[in-house]
């Protein structure tokens, strides 16, 4: 039960456009683009790193070693 609650709070945590914009230079926030490499190369939010859906499992730990790291995740559009 407790685990599920935690899971739900995590799932529903969002970041607003304004906050993201304001924190573009904040190194405490890692921005993750989950689109495929090609789409990422065509254009992405500045400073974001690419972790496509296919790679997340294998590469996430390597790119973001700290599990408590604050992460903003986004993809193409409203989802």
């Amino acid at each position, binding site marked *: 039960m407790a685990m599920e609650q935690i899971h739900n709070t995590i799932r529903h945590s969002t970041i607003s456009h304004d906050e993201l914009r304001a924190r573009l230079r904040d190194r405490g926030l890692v921005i993750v683009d989950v689109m*495929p490499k090609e789409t990422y190369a065509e254009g992405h939010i500045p400073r974001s790193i690419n972790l496509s859906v296919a790679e997340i499992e294998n590469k996430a730990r390597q790119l973001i070693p700290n*599990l408590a790291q604050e992460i903003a995740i*986004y993809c193409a559009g409203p989802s």
Partner: protein
Amino acid sequence: MLEKLGYTNVRHYVGGMADWLDHQCPVEESQPTSVGQTASPSTRPLATRHVSWLEIVANWPLQRLIGFWLGMIVVFGVVYWFAGIAMGWGLQAGSVPVKTDLEGFGTAIYFSFVTALSIGYGDVIPLGALRIFAVIEGIAGLLIFGCVISKLVSRRQEDLTAEIHRTTFEDRLDRVRTNLHLVFTDLGSVQQLQAEQGALPGQVLRRLESTVRVFRGELQTIHDLLYRSHVEPDEETLESILANLMICLQSLVEINTLRSAANGQSMILDAGLRSIGGLANEICGECVPRVYAPALKESMDQIQELARRLA
């Protein structure tokens, strides 16, 4: 997805790239980078890029551009005419000053056109400071007229390119549909053999491997079409492709379940299936395709479920 890996502080930017672009925020283009690299200030400055007035004008639509060009010519004509009235000297035709009546106004407009088009017959000439105006008009006229011409030419080019994109796209979609159907037929016969013989004999296994390879290639094509193309498939086409994809995945899952039970080992097959699962998952992933067709969510969810069972 990151949460499942143990990350505790993940926040979702719901609007995504579409929202980001709507707010006209800066966008970076590059090759994928790692965290280490992003620590260096490699991003483009956030300040908007300086744009010259010429670039702004060149981006105007064609009609506005022509309107601006004609307007400029008239304004300059009026300036030449007024100079004649206000200061008593303005334009001169031969050795006679141009009059300040209506006829003179006509001459001024005529001179303005001849200057803006850089024809410069020389039958009417500007005097004194008006020469500076005439030079400025000549330069501006040339530049703007150049923009008009290039717009006309590139518009035709753009139409053509869009047409080519569209036809190629439809062509590829058609091919994908046909191929998926072939894959399905092939999987069906493998399934039949499997039902008859229990396990998969070597020959049938080879056939399954080859079908899986073709299937994988088709999925790659669909993936590319959805994520990279500049044309969007209509919902109907996407629906039929997704339906095909689903039945193919369905029978592949069934074959695979039986195969694992009867321990038919094949490294190639395993790798192929993993890759198919991954691709199918991305095709119906959280991202791009749902922007195209939100109504197709249900079949996408089913495909994802199948893909998970496969991978």
